[in-house]
């Protein structure tokens, strides 16, 4: 079956939110290498979003986080980080071993169930203590691929080669994307760079960073009390492509196309996009799959410049919400990805009310 047919068959699954949910506060921090523990990193961020909304932990209906034991090098590492939340008296809490954007999705479902009015969502990642290239290798098929330890840039290069040879993208487009996302000054600088993982150059690949992000979500009943211009989640969906490389067409991302469709991306104009694109190839491919133009407004931050595994996706949602709060956007798209070369994709549309 061609990937396109998947989309055709499932397009009726459009998500219709039953209950309005808004992002009302965010705090984030990224640095190339942090010496703080995950708890020391998250306390100021969680404290900040609670202070912005005036909510105490006891006022928050649900707390959900995303992180990875493979980054911390320790089992059940997220339990330690609850020290940054303060689970006394006992709280309703959950965790996903995924980017925090999926913790937000779980939380959004909890809102739809009608059991909460406010929630704290956070995620963090500190790749600096270990080798992220090795950590990312361990997510590959454990029998045939992971034992070969392919590094993340090489896997991305396999995909880039196919895209270039097939003509889906050109090297000029890669150069322009690198300029647009700020990894080089101009085309000449791009082409003068040596190839890092042929055909990818350093400017095509992410710089990794330690970091964390915390958000407060609210239901319709409370959002306007907590925020001047709530960023309403009007559509959200996540989809996954096959895990086995052999079963995937590297030049297409049907999962993101579907997620965008189901999140209602094309139901109105998008005036701000925050893509979780760690590679230039991913930025171009995501735009093609979701039918997005090259934006006039730059992203508030680019994962290719500072990619924090487990937090980059949730940070996209935070940045999109910030565009709504400061009035620079009325309808913003946030995208998150996980897994090798855009395997899993989440698309979230945020909207601000217009006078």
């Amino acid at each position, binding site marked *: 079956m061609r990937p396109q047919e998947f989309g055709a068959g499932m397009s009726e699954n459009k998500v219709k939110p039953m209950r309005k949910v808004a992002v009302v506060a965010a705090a984030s921090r990224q640095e190339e290498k*942090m010496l703080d*523990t995950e*708890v*020391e990193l998250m306390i100021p961020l969680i*404290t900040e979003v609670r202070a912005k909304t005036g909510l105490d*932990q006891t006022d928050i209906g649900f707390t959900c986080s995303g992180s990875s034991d493979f980054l911390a090098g320790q089992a059940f590492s997220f339990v330690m980080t609850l*020290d940054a939340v303060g689970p*006394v008296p006992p709280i309703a809490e959950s965790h996903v071993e995924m980017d925090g954007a999926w913790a937000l999705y779980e939380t959004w479902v909890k809102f739809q169930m009608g059991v909460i009015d406010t929630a704290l969502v956070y995620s963090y990642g500190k790749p600096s203590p270990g080798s992220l290239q090795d950590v990312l290798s361990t997510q590959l098929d*454990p029998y045939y691929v*992971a034992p070969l330890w392919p590094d993340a840039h090489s896997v991305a290069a396999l995909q880039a080669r196919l895209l270039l040879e097939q003509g889906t993208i050109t090297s000029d487009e890669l150069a322009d994307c690198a300029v647009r996302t700020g990894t080089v000054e101009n085309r000449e600088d791009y082409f003068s760079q040596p190839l890092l993982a042929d055909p990818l150059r350093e400017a095509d690949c992410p710089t990794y960073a330690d970091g964390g992000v915390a958000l407060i979500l609210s239901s319709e009943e409370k959002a306007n009390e907590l925020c001047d211009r709530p960023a309403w989640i009007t559509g959200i969906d996540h989809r996954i492509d096959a895990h086995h490389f052999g079963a995937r067409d590297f030049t297409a991302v049907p999962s993101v196309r579907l997620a965008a469709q189901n999140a209602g991306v094309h139901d109105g104009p998008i005036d701000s996009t925050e893509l979780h694109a760690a590679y230039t190839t991913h930025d171009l491919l995501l735009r093609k799959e979701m039918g997005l133009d090259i934006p006039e407004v730059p992203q508030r931050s680019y994962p290719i410049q500072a990619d924090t595994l487990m937090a980059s996706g949730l940070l996209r949602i935070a940045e999109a919400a910030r565009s709504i709060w400061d009035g620079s956007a009325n309808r913003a798209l946030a995208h998150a990805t996980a897994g090798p070369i855009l395997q899993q994709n989440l698309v979230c549309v945020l909207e601000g009310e217009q006078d």
Partner: protein
Amino acid sequence: MTEISVPSSLDGVEPVQSVRTPIRMEYTFTPGVAAQTYLREFANKKILGNVSPVDGAVLVPPRGADPRHGALCDEFIEMPHTGHIGSFCVTNVPIPGRELELPYISAWIFLDGADIGFLNLVAECPPEECRIGMRVEAVWKPDEEIGMTAENILYWRPTGEPDIPFEAAGVRGWHVRKQGKTNA
């Protein structure tokens, strides 16, 4: 289930029962601000605790947070090297990798002035004489062997002083102390 067909050259070959794909990853662990401060002073034979900014509770060892409230703790306090046993366990079976003589006592030790306890060994005390509320003191390694490690204290031994009453020992003491603070 579908019959799997294999090349005839594999006829009668023993099926693969398992595969080994060893994974080894190395990390350079950073202890963070609070643990770093603690370990540096521990190498000077000082035990530090954190003071909670919420209610003044003293937390040993310091982790930079009052975990009950998610509050940042950046105030440190030097602790005495004496305390009492909040609870204990006598181990009678050997554990692989532990070279301790059996039986040995693991205890939850509350330093004087601390509001939480931590795990350590108790020795120079027959197991049948160990009890909740018993006063203990630290026995340090020889000075030349002391470093930035949790192994600095070899074990804790009884001081011979009168016990702390059961009601005030360990975590129960938390509630007694808290009540005292509230009443005052």
